[in-house]
Structures are given as C-alpha cells and as structure tokens.
C-alpha cells in the first residue's frame, strides 16, 4: 500500500476570522456596558417623626451646638461650637477629640454627647457633611486595616436660620 504523504501532512487550519469577529463583538459590548460606580457610604441619623413619640432618655446626653453661617454664595463663613469660634473643620475635629478622647478608658464612654447642627439656609450641603465627618468619628489604621472610630454619633438638626429667598 502506498501512503500518500502529500495530502496528510498538511496542517489543518482553523478558520480564525469568525472567532475573532465574535470575540471583538464581545469585547466592544463589555467595554460599552462598563460603568464605574463610585463607592458611596451613609451617615445614619435618627430623627423623630412629627408626633412627639420618643420617650425620655434616662441619661440625657451633653448637648453641643454647632452653628454654621454662610456667605451669600453659600460658602462657609463661620463655624462655632458652643461659643468657640473655629476656622476649619480640622479644628472642630480636634476640639471634639479633646472633649471625647479616643481610648481614654470606659469613663469617657459615660459622657454621651449630642451635637445639634444649626446652619444658614443657603449654606452648601457639603459643609454639613464635612461637619458631620469631623464630629462623627475618625478613620484610623488598626493593624493594617482601616477602621472607623466613632466619636459622637448622635446628631440632630435645628431649624435653619433664614429662609428661601423668594
């Protein structure tokens, strides 16, 4: 028997073109549907509903009032915590840390604070978030892990000063 050498040794060639077509289609599809979602987080606050239904708390927290005023364009003009004027949210944070030090033993936990935020009507909302951030806690690296240490989590809002301009 004669073995036909010529035909059999030919390489079997795959048709690449359709596969590449499809693969590129897939690639384009995934690129188009790709959307970057920013990481978002929440600040939880509890506010009573309209009918005064909340019961009296046994240990009344120490109340701190934070007052923020705004310039005409809505930027922050002044920042006052219980009569102490501050220039920045960093200063506010330091002041809060002084009032409620981190890891000062269980005794400091007995002191419960509540912050009441009162701001001007037209103040930009980002200032409020910055203020809450300064009051609420501190991000700290604990054993290589990012952890949030809570300072004061009771936050309330007082009636804004001023009203709609119209």
């Amino acid at each position, binding site marked *: 028997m004669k073995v036909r050498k010529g035909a059999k040794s030919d390489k079997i060639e795959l048709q*690449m073109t359709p596969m590449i077509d499809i693969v590129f289609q897939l690639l384009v599809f995934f690129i188009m549907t790709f959307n970057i979602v920013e990481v978002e987080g929440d*600040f939880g606050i509890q506010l009573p509903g309209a009918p005064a239904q909340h019961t009296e708390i046994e240990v009344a927290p120490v109340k701190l009032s934070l007052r923020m005023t705004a310039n005409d364009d809505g930027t922050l003009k002044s920042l006052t915590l219980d009569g102490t004027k501050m220039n920045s949210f960093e200063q506010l944070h330091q002041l809060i840390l002084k009032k409620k030090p981190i890891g000062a033993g269980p005794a400091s936990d007995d002191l419960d604070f509540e912050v009441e935020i009162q701001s001007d009507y037209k103040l930009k909302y980002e200032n409020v978030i910055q203020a809450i951030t300064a009051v609420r806690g501190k991000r700290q690296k604990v054993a290589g892990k990012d952890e949030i240490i809570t300072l004061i989590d009771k936050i309330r*809002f007082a009636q804004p000063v001023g009203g709609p301009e119209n």
Partner: protein
Amino acid sequence: MRLQKEKKEEAEGDMTPMIDIVFQLIAFFMVLVNFTKVDNDASIILPSSELAKPPEEKLKHSIMLQMTADGKVILGGELLDLEGDDLDSRLFRERRQAGDKLSEVAIIIRAHRDAATGKVQRLITRCQEKGFVRYQLRAKEKL
C-alpha cells in the same frame, strides 16, 4: 530571472498573542461589569467624606430621595418640586406601603454637594411629617 515560488505563499501572522490579549480584556470587563440597575442620578455630585463607608449589610427597606443642586427632588426617577403636592402624595404612598414597619424604613438622602442645607432639611422635615424616623445621608468615599 527565476521567480521564487515560496513568496507566493500567504504571509500568515501569528494570531495567538492577539487572541490571548483580547480574551484577557474580555475576562477583565466581564468580571468588572455590573448590571445592577442603579437609579443614581448622574448629575448629582455627592459631597465626599472619609467616613463614608459602604454599609456592611444592605438596607432592607429604603427609599431613595435625591436632591439636585437647585433643590429639586428626584423620587423614583421623577423630578418633583420640594414644596409640591406631588412629593407629598408620593411620600404618603410610601408611608402607606411601609405600614407598621415604619421604623425600619430608611430614607436615603442623596443631595448634591451645592444644594442649600435649608432645602435638604426641608426635605427631611417633609419626611418627618409623614412619620419616617430613619435617615441616611449619603456621601461618596474620600480616599
């Protein structure tokens, strides 16, 4: 002159590296893609905060209220007026849906960073009038 016959053969590029890379890309985008329908309005730029961490557990019952820079409210994809009756009736409907689980329902406030604080507070007050007690102020994570 003698023509070289070998030259007639099709010049074949090696496809393997290209296909490798393309598959890598596909795998990359496939893993990262998420089809979760987010009704976050793109025009709202959230204020940033270093304490804003995504919650460990998802809120069971929540209502998303968004506020644009000029103080309009977006609820369920609809642009509503802050003082309008539409918002009132929508909130009322949500309130009725919540039933007796009112204390579990969290209102998520996604307000633009330039929105007036008074307007955000007014929005909260309007929800308070309906009896909602839990509020979440949303901010984006600052790294």
